[in-house]
């Protein structure tokens, strides 16, 4: 054993280590800057899809806003309740449960005839630029059908069916609201899971006009208005509108609507919720 070499090696390594250690220790004291670790912690929890549903520039912006308590912790739609709880744990606060929200398209696109041929960019927003005819279909309130919402959805929850109407997959939908922003006809809306009765039409055309061009359009017949036991649905400007303050989601209006404009999603949603819960149970066991 070459003791000399060993001791030199040991000594020099120890020396380097000591010198660097001292320098770093001094440096960390000398150049100390306080940073809030929580920002990074929160950012790590956020899904990182930068969808903007929270209203901040990306997940990092939202994380910073949470830590500086500019924003509440429940704004992240994609992350959902789980995410909110994790953030709350870091921030040392409790949050109320977040009910899931889903998007819904308020048009069923019932066989509306075309007014003209269109050749150009297939984007609903392009179709409503002045001079582009305002959508190919005769109904100037309903879905244009170029799938802008489907392309805008960051979660692939919207697909266009063969009738060129958007179909929203509620399994994938996180209620982020991108589709609401992009729809030039304001057809998409985000609503709580428990709210299940909707009028799927936005046409303010006169009943006769709507009747002629659309088989799923509100014709302002007022049957729903008469049927409603809670005075919660009214025909305003040729369109049935539900007042959710009064609506008890009984679904009577759904049954009387001759055009199938009003729908009730309770059954489907309940079934799906049950499936989700059993799946979650299985996963834990």
């Amino acid at each position, binding site marked *: 054993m070459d003791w000399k*070499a060993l001791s*030199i*090696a040991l000594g*020099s*390594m120890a020396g*380097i*280590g000591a010198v*660097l250690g001292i*320098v*770093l220790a001094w*440096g*960390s004291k*000398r*150049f*100390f*800057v306080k940073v809030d670790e929580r920002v990074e912690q929160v950012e790590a929890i956020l899904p990182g899809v930068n969808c903007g549903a929270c209203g901040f520039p990306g997940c990092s912006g939202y994380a910073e806003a949470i830590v500086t308590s500019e924003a509440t912790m429940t704004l992240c739609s994609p992350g959902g309740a789980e995410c909110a709880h994790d953030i709350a744990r870091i921030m040392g606060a409790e949050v109320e449960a977040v009910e899931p929200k889903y998007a819904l398209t308020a048009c069923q696109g019932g066989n509306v005839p075309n007014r003209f041929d269109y050749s150009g960019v297939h984007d609903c927003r392009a179709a409503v630029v002045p001079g582009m005819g305002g959508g190919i279909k005769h109904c100037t309130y309903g879905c244009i059908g170029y799938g802008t919402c489907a392309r805008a959805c960051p979660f692939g929850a919207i697909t266009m069916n063969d009738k060129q109407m958007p179909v929203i997959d509620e399994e994938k939908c996180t209620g982020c609201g991108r589709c609401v922003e992009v729809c030039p006809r304001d057809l998409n809306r985000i609503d709580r899971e428990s709210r299940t009765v909707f009028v799927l039409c936005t046409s303010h055309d006169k009943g006769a006009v709507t009747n002629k061009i659309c088989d799923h359009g509100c014709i302002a017949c007022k049957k729903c208005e008469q049927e409603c036991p809670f005075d919660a649905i009214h025909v305003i400007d040729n369109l049935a509108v539900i007042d959710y303050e009064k609506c008890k989601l009984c679904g009577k209006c759904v049954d009387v609507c001759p055009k199938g404009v009003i729908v009730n999603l309770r059954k489907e949603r309940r079934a799906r919720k049950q499936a989700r819960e059993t799946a979650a149970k299985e996963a834990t066991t």
Partner: protein
Amino acid sequence: MEQAVIYLKIIFAAVFVQNFVLSKFLGLCPFIGVSKKRSSAIGMGLAVIFVMTLASAATMLIYQYLLKPFKMEFYLDIVSFIVVIAALVQFVELAMRKLAPALYKALGIYLPLITTNCAVLGVTQLNLEFAKLNGITLTDCLLRSIVNGVFAGVGFTLALVLMAGIRERLESSPVPECMQGVPIAFIAAACMALAFFGFAGIA
């Protein structure tokens, strides 16, 4: 004049002919990871140049004054170099955060990436190989490794920035789905490396 030509050749070789990324495969992780945006590519590149220069100088000094005289260059080089580089990077980061916050915002976030950037340790190893093979004077060795360090960093930055420009363009291209992101970056790097073959044999 002679000296100048020699250094010119070193520089040309470090930047183009023996480009660290495109012909030596050094520093690929940051090359692929930080080349998505031009601004961050420039930041990363500058940080690498900075650290490479310091590391080249520091490690050459350690080699000349510590490892070589005590005949430890065979078994203590890696350990001592990496420790010095790690400490250096951390110290620079600390100092920059305090003294130049603006610079830290631009470059500092890339500094932690550099410790494990093999380009930095790689340049010290290459300098070492040169110093071992050609026993020229100490100052010459030092100067050479610093120049090599700076311009290897410049070469890295060049490749990184060009790559960032290309990837920005690719972002709006209908790249086949399975190739999006990293695979196409590698294929672009392959094409860049092929193009850089043109410099072969110069100097």
